[in-house]
C-alpha cells in the first residue's frame, strides 16, 4: 500500500462518506460544547444536514467511474446508487425517530451521531473493492448498530437485542476475517482485482474454504437462512426507528458489498458459489415466509419478511450477471421505501407504554385512521409484489435476471413464495379493514416528521412502481461498468 498518492481521485472517492462522518462528529461536538441542552429538533436538523452533504456529494459525483487508493476503493455507479439507499434509510429513520424516542423515554442524544456513523460505514461497504476496506466499513457500521439496538436502556428487550446482536455479530465477523485470511493466503491479495488475478494459480482448498467463510460472514449481516436466528429478536427488541435502519440500511450495505465481491472479485469462482447461494436463496425465502405466517406481532412479522426479501435478493446474485447486479440495486431502492414505510406505520401506532405491535392492535384502523391504514396497505401490497407498486417492478426485475440466466425453477420459487407471503401481509390488511377494533385506536397526535416520512415512503413506493425506467437504467449502467 506504500506509495499510494492522495490525489483528487482519492478526495472524490471519500467525499460522500467522509462528509456524513464529519456531520456525525459535528453533531457530537455540538452536544458537548453547547451551552445548554439543545432541543432535539435542532440536533435532528444538524444530522440531516450531514446526510444532505453526503447526498450532494453523491449527486455531484454522479456518473463517475473511477478507482482510488490503488484500486481498493471505488467511485462508481454501484457505490453512488447504493449511497442513495443508505442516505434515504438514515434520513427517514431519523425523521421517524423524532417524537418516538421521547415517547419511549430515550434521552440518549448519541442516537443521532451513531446513525450517521453507521451510515458512513455502509457507504464504505458499498464502495469497497478490497476485503480489508469491506471489513472496515462493516465494522464501522456494525459497532454503531450494536449500540443503536440497545439505546433503549430501560427496556430489557432492547438490551437483549443489543447483546445478542453484538455477540453473534462478533462471531460472524470472525468468520469473515478467517475468510479474508484464507483468500489472502490462497491468492496473495485482498483487493478484488488481485484476488481475481490470483485465483487461477491458487490452491483450491484454501479458495473454497475462504469462500465458504465469507458467505457465512456476509450471510449473517444480510440475514440469510440459516444465519438469521438473531434477526427476529434483534429487530423486535430494538426501538422501531433503529429496526427500520437495520432492516433497510444494514441489509442494503451487506448486499451492495456482496454483489460487488461476488460479481467482480469472485466472478471466476461462479460455478463454486452459485449452487451454494442458490440453496441459500431458496432456504431463506421459504423458511422466512413460513415462519412469518405464524407471527402475531407485526414488528416480528416484518422482521421475518425482511429475511424473506434477503432471499429474493440472493436470487439475483445467483444469476451472476450484470442484470442480476442491477436488479439487486434497484430492488434495494424499492425495498427501502416500502420497508421504511411499514416500520413507520408501526412507529405511528406505538403509544407511550404500549407499543401496539400485535396484529389485534391494527383492527379497525381502516375505519378510524383511513390514511394511515391506506398507506400501510400500499406498503404491504408492494412488499407482496402487486403492480403497479415499486415492489412488483423490483421483483419482476429480479425474476427476469434469474430467467435470463436460465434459473427457471429458482424464479418459480420466488413467485410461489410471493403467494406464501401474500398470506401474512394480507392478514394485516384484513385486521385493519375487515375486523372490528378490540380496543380504542389511539388518537392521532400531530407528528409532522413522521407524517413526512410516511409521505415520502408512500410516494416513493408508488413512483418507482409506475415510473421505474430512470432508476432501472442507472442501476443497469452501474453494473455494466464493473462486470465484463
Amino acid at each position: 500500500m506504500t506509495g499510494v498518492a492522495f490525489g483528487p481521485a482519492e478526495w472524490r472517492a471519500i467525499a460522500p462518506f467522509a462528509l456524513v462522518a464529519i456531520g456525525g462528529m459535528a453533531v457530537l461536538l455540538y452536544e458537548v460544547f453547547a451551552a445548554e441542552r439543545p432541543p432535539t429538533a435542532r440536533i435532528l436538523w444538524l444530522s440531516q444536514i450531514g446526510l444532505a452533504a453526503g447526498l450532494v456529494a453523491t449527486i455531484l459525483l454522479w456518473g463517475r467511474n473511477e478507482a482510488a487508493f490503488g484500486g481498493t476503493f471505488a467511485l462508481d455507479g454501484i457505490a453512488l446508487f447504493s449511497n442513495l439507499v443508505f442516505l434515504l434509510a438514515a434520513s427517514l429513520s431519523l425523521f421517524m425517530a423524532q417524537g418516538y424516542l421521547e415517547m419511549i423515554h430515550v434521552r440518549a442524544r448519541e442516537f443521532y451521531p451513531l446513525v450517521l456513523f453507521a451510515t458512513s460505514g455502509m457507504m464504505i461497504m458499498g464502495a469497497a473493492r478490497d476485503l480489508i476496506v469491506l471489513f472496515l466499513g462493516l465494522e464501522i457500521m456494525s459497532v454503531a448498530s450494536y449500540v443503536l439496538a440497545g439505546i433503549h436502556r430501560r427496556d430489557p428487550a432492547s438490551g437483549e437485542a443489543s447483546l445478542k446482536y453484538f455477540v453473534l455479530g462478533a462471531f460472524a465477523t470472525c468468520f469473515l476475517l478467517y475468510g479474508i485470511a484464507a483468500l489472502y493466503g490462497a491468492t496473495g491479495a485482498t483487493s478484488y482485482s488481485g484476488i481475481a488475478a490470483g485465483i487461477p494459480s491458487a490452491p483450491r482448498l484454501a479458495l473454497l474454504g475462504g469462500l465458504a467463510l465469507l458467505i457465512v460472514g456476509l450471510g449473517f449481516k444480510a440475514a440469510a437462512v440459516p444465519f438469521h436466528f438473531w434477526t427476529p429478536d434483534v429487530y423486535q427488541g430494538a426501538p422501531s426507528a433503529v429496526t427500520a435502519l437495520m432492516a433497510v440500511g444494514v441489509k442494503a450495505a451487506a448486499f451492495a458489498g456482496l454483489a460487488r465481491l461476488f460479481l467482480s472479485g469472485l466472478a471466476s469462482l461462479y460455478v463454486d458459489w452459485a449452487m451454494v447461494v442458490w440453496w441459500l436463496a431458496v432456504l431463506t425465502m421459504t423458511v422466512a415466509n413460513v415462519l412469518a405466517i405464524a407471527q402475531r406481532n407485526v414488528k416480528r412479522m416484518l422482521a421475518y419478511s425482511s429475511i424473506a426479501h434477503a432471499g429474493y435478493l440472493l436470487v439475483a446474485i445467483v444469476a451472476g450477471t450484470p442484470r442480476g447486479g442491477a436488479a439487486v440495486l434497484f430492488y434495494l431502492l424499492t425495498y427501502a421505501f416500502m420497508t421504511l414505510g411499514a416500520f413507520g406505520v408501526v412507529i405511528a401506532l406505538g403509544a407511550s407504554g404500549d407499543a401496539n405491535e400485535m396484529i389485534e392492535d391494527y383492527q379497525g384502523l381502516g375505519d378510524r385512521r383511513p390514511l394511515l391504514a391506506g398507506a400501510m396497505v400500499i406498503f404491504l401490497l408492494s412488499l407482496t409484489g402487486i403492480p403497479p407498486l415499486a415492489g412488483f417492478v423490483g421483483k419482476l426485475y429480479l425474476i427476469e435476471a434469474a430467467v435470463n440466466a436460465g434459473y427457471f425453477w429458482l424464479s418459480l420459487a420466488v413467485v410461489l413464495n410471493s403467494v406464501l407471503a401474500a398470506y401474512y401481509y394480507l392478514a394485516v390488511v384484513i385486521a385493519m379493514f375487515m375486523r372490528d377494533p378490540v380496543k380504542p385506536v389511539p388518537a392521532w397526535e400531530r407528528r409532522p416528521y413522521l407524517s413526512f416520512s410516511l409521505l415520502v415512503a408512500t410516494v416513493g413506493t408508488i413512483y418507482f412502481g409506475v415510473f421505474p425506467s430512470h432508476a432501472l437504467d442507472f442501476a443497469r449502467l452501474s453494473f455494466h461498468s464493473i462486470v465484463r
Partner: protein
Amino acid sequence: MTDSVLSLIVWSPLVASFIVVLLPGQALNVVRMTAFVLSLVPFGLSLAMLAMFDPSVGTLQLSEKVTWMPSLGVYYSLGVDGFSLWLIILTTFLTPVILLASWHDIEKRVKEFLFFMLLLEWGMLGALAAVDLFLFFMFWELMLFPMAFVIGIWGGPRRRYAAVKFVLYTMAGSALMIVAMLYVVLRHAGATGAYTFDVVSLYDTPLTYTEQVLCFAGFALPFMIKVPMVPLHTWLPDAHTEAPTGGSVDLAGVLLKMGAYGFVRFALPMFPAAAEDAFPLIMILGVIGIVYGAMVAFPQPDMKRLVAYSSVSHLGFVMLGLYAFNMAGITGGVLQMINHGLSTGALFIMVGYIYHRRHTRQIDEYGGLWSVVPIFSALFLVVTLSSIGLPGMNGFVGEFLILLGAFRAHPLAGGIGTLGVVLGAGYMLTMYQQVIFGPVKNAANKALVDLDWREIGAVAPIVLMFFWIGLYPDPFLSRIEPTTQVLLSRLSKAGATRYMADAGAGSSAVALASPGGARP
C-alpha cells in the same frame, strides 16, 4: 376522441372513484347518486366506442400506444377487437346497474363501497383493453384487491375466509403467469433483439414445443382458476356466497370472463401448438364442469350458492365453445360470456332483492311468493328462463352455437354438453318452483313488499338485452366473427388444425342460429 376513447373509458372510473371519496360522507343518497351518475360516464363513452368500432375489421382497433418503461420494453398499449368489445360494454353497463340495484344494500361505509366498486370497474376495463402483457398483468392484479375488499368488508359471516381464499387462488395462478410471461418476452428478445411486452408482437415468438407447453401451462392455469374450471373452482362458491350483491354481480358478470377472455387473447394465439394439444384436457374438464356444476347446484339449499354452481356449469359451456376451434364454437363462446354476465348478474340481483327483504337465502324459507310479490316473481321468471336458455332469449343463441361447434369438434363432448342444458333447466326451474309457487308456508313472507321502481329500473335494461340478443343477435355476432376468423387463421397457420372443422361452414351455421334471419 377516436384515438383516446379507450383511455377515457378505462380511466374515468378511477377519476370517479376519487371524486366519490372526496365527497362529504353524511348525505348517503347524494354520494350514491353521484357515484351512479359518474358510472354512466364510462358507459356513455363505451357506446361511443361501439359507434367508432369498425365491424368489418377483426384485428385490434382504436389502438393507443405510448412508451411507458423503455428499459423493460413496456408500452401503455390499448386496443379493442371483437372479443373485448362486448365485454367492455358489459362491464360499463353492469356497474350503473349494480349501483342502482344495491342502493340500500350497503348502509355502513357507503363511500368506501362505492370507491371500491368503481376501482374494480377500472381494473376490469383496464384488463380488457390492455394489449401489453405488463399492462394486462397490472390490471389483472389490480382488480383482485377491490373485489377482495368488497367481499371482506361487506360480505357475509365467512367473508374474511372467502376473501383470502379468493386472493390466494388468483395469486397462485398469476405467479406462474409472470414467469411464463417473462420467459416469452426474453425468448422474443433473444430471437428478434427487440425487448417488448406487446402482445401482438409476442404472438410470433419462436418457441420450441416444450417451451410452448410449459408457457401455455403458465398462462392457462391462472385463466383456468379464474374461469373457473373444475377442479380449480372451489374458491368461487365461497366468494359468491359471501360477497354482497354488487360484488357477486361483478364477479359473475365480468371477473369470471377474464379467464375465458385470457384464453382467446393470450393463451391460444401465443402458444397454438400447445393449446391445441391441450384439447382433450380442456374438453374433458369443460364437460366435467358442465355436468358437475349442474349436479352440485341441484341440492343446494342456498339460492346464491345454487347460482354460483350454475356459473361453474355455464362457464364450462363457454370453454367447450372456445375449444371447439371453429367459427360457431368460438363465436358462441364469446357471446355466451356476455349472456352469462347478463343472466347470472340478473339472477344475483334478484336473489339480492329478496335477501334484502328477508335476510335469508335458504330456499325452504320461501314458497308461494307469486301471490305476495307478483312483479318480483314475474321478473324472476324471465331471468330464470334466460339463464336456462329458452329460445328467443339470449342464452339460447349462445348455447346453440357452442353445441353446434362442439358437436363438430367432438360429438361426444357436444352430446354430454347437451345434457348440461337439460340439467340446467332442471335445477333452475326446481328452485323457481320452490320459491315462487305453492302456498305461502312461511308467515314471514306474507308481508313482503314488492319491487319498487328503482329495483325494477335496475333489472329492466338487462331484460331488454335478453330479448335483443335472443331475437336479433346479428349486431353482436357480426362484430365477434371477424375476430374469430383472425384467431382461427392464426391457429391454422401454426398448424393447429387437427380439431378444426372448416371455418367456412361455421359462418352459415351462425346465420342459421340467428332467428333475425338473413345476414348481409
